[in-house]
């Protein structure tokens, strides 16, 4: 258990002790510096100014039995992309504290979440509304005090919770002047299933299956992030081959969703050939995941320590073949799209976000990269033992065209990466020519204990670049070695505000197109 607990660097600076860990590492809670609130806010502001991102901010309810803990401890997790490090810092607060949001906009939703969960008031928060309507005693879902613009010509458009298609539920409230959207407010919470609450006290046999449903189309990413924190906290290393296979599954998940979304974008503008092809090709990627593990969404493929199935050489060869064929068809489908000037004209300039706004809101994933922000946890926070990550793709324009472009380029880099994984690693046998890889947790029956004992009073952080962006899981153990708190941050949690921003001063008829270019997760946000 010892090795994983090493703190990489503990520096002493003017701001007090600083704790840095790497992605997928644990540290003792005692090593997390607890600053005065003023110093905490100052350190956050400085770090963010210097390029860090706020990956998680949550409250740890104090333990009344230990006198040294205040009613509540705020814990912030910063991703320092340039250094490949994660910084953890904390501050004790009573029942209220001065809100960070006016100075740190990307804290806006985290502070609302803390308020909703623990009742602690961030004083001066400009937008202190429920996030998930999760309190039994709180207002009913959707009963929010919506922002309103007055005026004779202004009208309000309410959409949802149930939408027109086969899609998750959420409420959108537009303030419009004719076609012009002056403001879009997004009010979610309909998909709240209380996931975090179910996980506290664990891990147990239900934890990982639950995590796989946190956001069903990003189940691999969440399962991996969860495995990482639990492996770090239990001192168990994932098998190297298991990591390779997880990586393959993660890229297949990215390919399926990017391909599907390119099809959906085409459908929204009435470019039906690519819409039809991509609808099928998305399924082809999902079927490759099913070849690996039996389930199109990779359910129960990842388990603590590795994966449940290890492809033999024959299966690797089949996967390679499928990869080739599907890649060809995807390229053809996308070429038809990019070759059409009318498509380009329709995508250009719609739903624009500036790089400054994207940075201030803390956007992640393709949405951020489409604003020219070079953020990708695969390259900035790589895990040991994986081949060099695919090249980071970005585009500077910030509009639907940029988001489509980034997705399309990522499809290419991801295909190349899968190819490398299969060709150079997964599909190659060990030197002695044996077909099975004993170092991979492979055969069913070797499944790891789903409820391992964890190092007490520790914290672990993991970052996984899902197709929508960074998934961040933070887990904190109590003295009994069980989970005392977890914070699960889906990329959608950061990016919904980006969608609202993209619509500002746009046309309401462009909403479906903008929405598809983000394709955010409702349940990932609502948990």
């Amino acid at each position, binding site marked *: 258990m010892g090795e994983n607990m090493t703190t990489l660097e503990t520096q002493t600076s003017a701001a007090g002790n600083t704790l840095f860990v790497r992605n997928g590492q644990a540290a003792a809670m005692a090593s997390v510096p607890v600053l005065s609130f003023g110093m905490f806010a100052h350190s956050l502001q400085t770090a963010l100014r210097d390029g860090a991102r706020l990956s998680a901010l949550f409250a740890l309810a104090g333990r009344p039995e230990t006198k040294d803990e205040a009613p509540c401890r705020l814990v912030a997790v910063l991703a320092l992309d340039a250094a490949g490090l994660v910084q953890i810092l904390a501050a004790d607060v009573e029942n209220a504290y001065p809100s960070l949001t006016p100075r740190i906009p990307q804290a806006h939703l985290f502070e609302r979440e803390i308020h909703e969960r623990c009742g602690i008031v961030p004083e001066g928060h400009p937008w202190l509304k429920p996030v*998930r*309507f*999760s309190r*039994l005693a709180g207002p009913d*879902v959707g009963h929010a005090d919506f922002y309103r613009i007055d005026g004779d010509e202004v009208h309000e458009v309410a959409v949802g*919770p*149930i939408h027109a*298609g*086969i*899609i*998750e*539920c959420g409420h959108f409230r537009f303030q419009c002047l004719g076609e012009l959207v002056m403001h879009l407010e997004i009010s979610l*919470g*309909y*998909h*709240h*299933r*209380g996931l975090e*609450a*179910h996980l506290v006290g664990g891990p147990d*046999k*239900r934890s990982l*299956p*639950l995590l796989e*449903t*946190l*956001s*069903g*189309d990003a189940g691999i990413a969440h399962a991996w992030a969860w495995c990482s924190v639990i492996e770090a906290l239990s001192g168990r290393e994932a098998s190297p081959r298991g990591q390779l296979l997880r990586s393959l599954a993660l890229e297949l998940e990215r390919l399926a969703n990017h391909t*599907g979304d390119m099809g959906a974008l085409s459908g929204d503008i009435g470019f039906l*050939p690519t819409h*039809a092809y991509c*609808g*099928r090709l*998305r*399924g082809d990627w999902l*079927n490759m995941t*099913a*070849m690996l593990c*039996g*389930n*199109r*969404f990779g*359910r*129960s493929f990842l388990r603590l320590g590795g994966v*449940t*199935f290890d492809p*033999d050489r024959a299966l690797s060869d089949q996967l390679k073949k499928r990869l080739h064929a599907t890649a060809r*068809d995807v390229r*053809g*489908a996308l*070429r*038809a799209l990019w*070759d*059409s000037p009318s498509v380009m004209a329709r995508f250009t300039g719609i739903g624009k976000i500036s790089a400054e706004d994207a940075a201030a809101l803390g956007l992640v994933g393709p949405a951020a990269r489409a604003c020219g922000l070079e953020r990708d946890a695969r390259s900035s926070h790589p895990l040991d033992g994986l081949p060099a990550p695919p090249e980071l793709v970005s585009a500077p324009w910030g509009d639907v065209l940029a988001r489509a472009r980034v997705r399309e380029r990522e499809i290419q880099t991801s295909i190349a990466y899968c190819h490398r994984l299969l060709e150079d690693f997964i599909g190659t046998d060990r030197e002695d020519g044996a077909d099975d890889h004993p170092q991979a947790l492979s*055969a*069913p*029956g070797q499944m790891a204990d*789903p409820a391992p004992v964890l190092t007490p009073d520790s914290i672990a952080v993991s970052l996984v670049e899902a197709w929508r962006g960074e998934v961040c899981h933070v887990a904190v153990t109590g003295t009994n070695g069980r989970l005392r708190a977890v914070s699960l941050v889906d990329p959608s949690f950061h990016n919904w505000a980006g969608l609202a921003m993209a619509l500002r001063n746009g046309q309401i008829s462009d909403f479906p197109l903008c929405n598809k270019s983000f394709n955010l997760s409702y349940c990932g946000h*609502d948990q």
Partner: protein
Amino acid sequence: MLNIFLERLRQKKRTVPYPKALPQLPPRFRGRPLINARRCDGAQGTNCRDCADACPAGAIAFDDRSPVLDTGLCTFCGACATACKRQALFFTTDWRLASSSRDALLVRPGNTKELFAPKGAGFAAVSLPGPEPLGSLDLKAVTPPPIRPFAGGGAFRRSFRLRQVSAAGCGACEADLNVLSTVVFDLARFGIDFVASPRHADALVITGPAPRNMKQALLICDEATPKPRAVIAVGACAISGGLFHEKSGATDGQEADGASALLPVDLYIPGCPPHPYTNLDGLLRFLGLSVQRPSE
């Protein structure tokens, strides 16, 4: 422009011939579970509870010492088959899981030997445990769980409109319903379509465990659907609450027992998520559209 036409030729026709031809399912696909009574210790009166102990969804109960696996709760994770030391509980690639009877979703120990086909003649294989498959199954010997056709099977046979409501589904059930409208499955060729308004719908297709925050919206949508309407519960969540069902220990004021707890369900389609073929089989049999068997 020419490129678009050429690409159309390259992409070929891709609609699957189901139900005329059998689907190609991956060998590891976990469809219908079966329990071999002769091998099952629990069924033979010992106190083996390995499968139930491994199950994350609380889907296996013991009825007078023999295990009963509820496919309406099951997520098809395979943990039970992995835990069963005697390979009594195993999964097959039989995708036909849907039923109009909640009771028919229960799998009890039985004589599984007679379900196996002579080598090479089977239609579905054992997917877990692997890698040495126990063999393949004979289609004629395995009857899918029964479905009582909606409205006698006649009235809606040629036009059946569905309104989907995601009552806090995770997105996977929704995705594998969505896929039915792609060129691959081309649901419209059976006269089945998803529509935007409940007013135009003949059936509600519900996914998700329907937790507190979705209950009202779901019930309002149901009210807006003209009667008679069918209710179809897709996925473990909608059938029973799945992983969020109280039996699995998931409460905290967010009790979520699925659509069945709120509305009378006419068709249950198990899975997490159900495979598109499972959905398709369920819908076709629900309309009384004869599903041809390959051997006939």
